[in-house]
């Protein structure tokens, strides 16, 4: 099993300033201790509602935000990751650990190392209208990563741009146009081309189909599958639309208030969701079949603010299975068989 990306206990807080001297009075705990692994050439789905931290998680992995703590191991062999974990427990202050982390842990990379990382990890944003600079020609937009990373310029860059445009289904006629001359679907293709032009190994797709029409979504999803087959890219598909994630991902993780509550293969999650939140979430999705109508809403209340998450299990105020232990301790992600990880005391009782 070769993992391309391994996240260990990642945390990202955003400070809230208050008072006259602008001191930090509180933190928005957007990502609060997240650990998972992404295999090579798979499509890993990340679902959750607004405020759960999925977009922040994606951007933190990409180092658009600097994590507060935790490790991001990109393309690091499994044995080294395990060695680092054991070193952290046994010799937390050893020089060896520090050297390992400096070399392998992306979360602390700077300068040249960070630039190299940019070549291998990219992102496609949700809204192609705002993620493309409306005053630049398509050719310049797609060529920018090449120029910024020093991979190619001029004629060579143009060749690479044409190659990638063909891959995403555009032609050279689209080179010398402004983004606003295209439809939403085509603009999103330009954004995808920009992300792929440096041939990254890992691309984060942040709700890439939300801002696009229903009939165009299928085209984009086909494109993603096609690109994955042809180029072997690893995708991380962040979305709040569970029906799409079900169709395109191999494995899925469900986030709630900054933590992952369940993750497993797509079939397992959608056919046998174990966590009460996952069950409610999947049941809330409106099925396009009028013969399957639900009488009551599966979940009441609203997502609490990530500034002050509930103590213990974050879901306990809304959980139908909440017990007394849920109000005191936070459940860990436990393998409940078949590589199906759940963080819930009702599923995996506290021992």
């Amino acid at each position, binding site marked *: 099993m070769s993992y391309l990306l391994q996240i260990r206990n990642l945390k990202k807080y955003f400070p809230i300033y208050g008072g006259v001297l602008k001191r930090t009075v509180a933190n928005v705990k957007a990502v609060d201790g997240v650990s998972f692994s992404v295999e090579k050439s798979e499509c890993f789905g990340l679902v959750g509602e607004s405020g759960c931290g999925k977009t922040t998680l994606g951007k933190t992995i990409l180092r658009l935000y600097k994590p507060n703590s935790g490790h991001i191991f990109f393309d690091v062999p499994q044995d080294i990751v395990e060695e680092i974990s054991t070193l952290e427990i046994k010799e937390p202050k050893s020089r060896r650990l520090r050297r390992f982390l400096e070399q392998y842990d992306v979360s602390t990379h700077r300068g040249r190392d960070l630039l190299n990382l940019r070549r291998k990890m990219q992102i496609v944003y949700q809204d192609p209208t705002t993620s493309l600079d409306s005053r630049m020609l398509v050719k310049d937009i797609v060529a920018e990563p090449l120029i910024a990373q020093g991979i190619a310029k001029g004629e060579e860059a143009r060749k690479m741009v044409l190659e990638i445009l063909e891959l995403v289904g555009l032609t050279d006629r689209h080179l010398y146009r402004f983004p606003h001359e295209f439809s939403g679907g085509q603009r999103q293709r330009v954004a995808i081309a920009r992300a792929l032009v440096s041939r990254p190994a890992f691309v984060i797709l942040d709700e890439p189909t939300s801002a696009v029409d229903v009939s165009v979504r299928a085209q984009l999803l086909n494109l993603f599958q096609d690109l994955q087959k042809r180029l072997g890219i690893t995708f991380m598909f962040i979305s709040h639309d569970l029906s799409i994630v079900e169709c*395109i991902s191999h494995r899925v993780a469900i986030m709630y208030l900054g933590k992952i509550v369940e993750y497993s293969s797509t079939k397992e999650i959608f056919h046998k969701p174990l966590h009460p939140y996952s069950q409610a979430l999947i049941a809330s999705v*409106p099925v*396009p079949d009028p013969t399957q109508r639900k009488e009551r809403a599966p979940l009441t209340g609203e997502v609490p603010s990530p500034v002050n998450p509930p103590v213990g299990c974050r879901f306990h105020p809304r959980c139908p299975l909440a017990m007394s232990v849920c109000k005191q301790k936070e459940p860990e992600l436990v393998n409940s068989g078949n590589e199906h990880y759940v963080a819930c005391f009702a599923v995996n009782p506290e021992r």
Partner: protein
Amino acid sequence: MSQKNVVEVQNLDVKFYTYAGVVEALDGVNLTLREGEILGLVGETGCGKSVTSLSILMLVPPPGRIEGGKIRFDKQGGADILRMNDASLRSMRGKDISMIFQEPRAYLNPVYTVEDQISEVMLVHRQVEFFSKAIQALQARKSKGLELNVYRRLAKNPESRIGGFIGRFSRKRQFKDEVRNEVVRVLKSVEIPDPERVAHMYPHELSGGMAQRVVIAMALACYPTMLIADEPTTNLDVTVQAQILNLVKQLRDNFKSSILYITHDLGVVAQVCDRVAVMYAGNVVETADVFELFGSPLHPYTRALLESIPRPGKAFKSIPGIVPSLINPLSGCRFRDRCPYAMEICLKVKPPFDEVKKGHFAACYLYGGS
């Protein structure tokens, strides 16, 4: 569900005169909303669903202009909305027909509390009622002061300008109390927890779901005959959407409201609507009962739309081509370039909107109509 029609849109034509040319946004739209039913209006971006709903309220912004057709509103004795004068329109908006929009916080004024905004709507239309209630309450307490006389005068002459002024800015306690009670009652009816506290909150303190409920409360404040909901749950989380959809269904069941529900999400349509109208590029192409539409769709566009819903394990099917430009549109059916069944006549003449089966309308030459 009675067969009485609340609103009939007939052959509505709306054009937008822009710098780039004349956009024929709506080209003969036919829509019928029956009493006590939820009619879904489905279509992609740019198909004209929002313009249709705005036309019903005569709120189409310039450079748009309503060029033809009729919108018959049953409550006003079948009068044509498009020919109404300003005063009738103003009394109709908010009282007979209300509208709720997509982004709730954009449609709430950030400097007024929830209570202020809901009472504003109520005071426009239900002033006299509040005066009467205030008078009754004061009489019950046997008070004889100035307040009572003022209200009596105003109740007798509700059209007076001073009446309107006092009604809106009144600081007299009894009147304010009546209004506040009514606001709390309306908030309760949309299942907002702790309505007294919420009434004093500002819009930025509300979450998305709460804000949308407040907007729905504002729309229901005057017991409208018809509610237009323009994609009210698109920006909300899935779990909150389920709650709001439930609320909408309850409105239909408990209050017999007629609701025009606009969306692009076919899942929502299947869950909530009784009848569905499908729009494409400024035309209504198919209207049917929701089970009929999903079970046996007639129009090729409806079929393609249903097939493009992603299903696990199956390949993704999309509709080839793009939506045609509405500036100088081509003749004939607007779906002609993307339709797998296009015939000669489809290129020349627009198909009529006929009743193919009972209660099931479609605009397609596959079902006759040449």
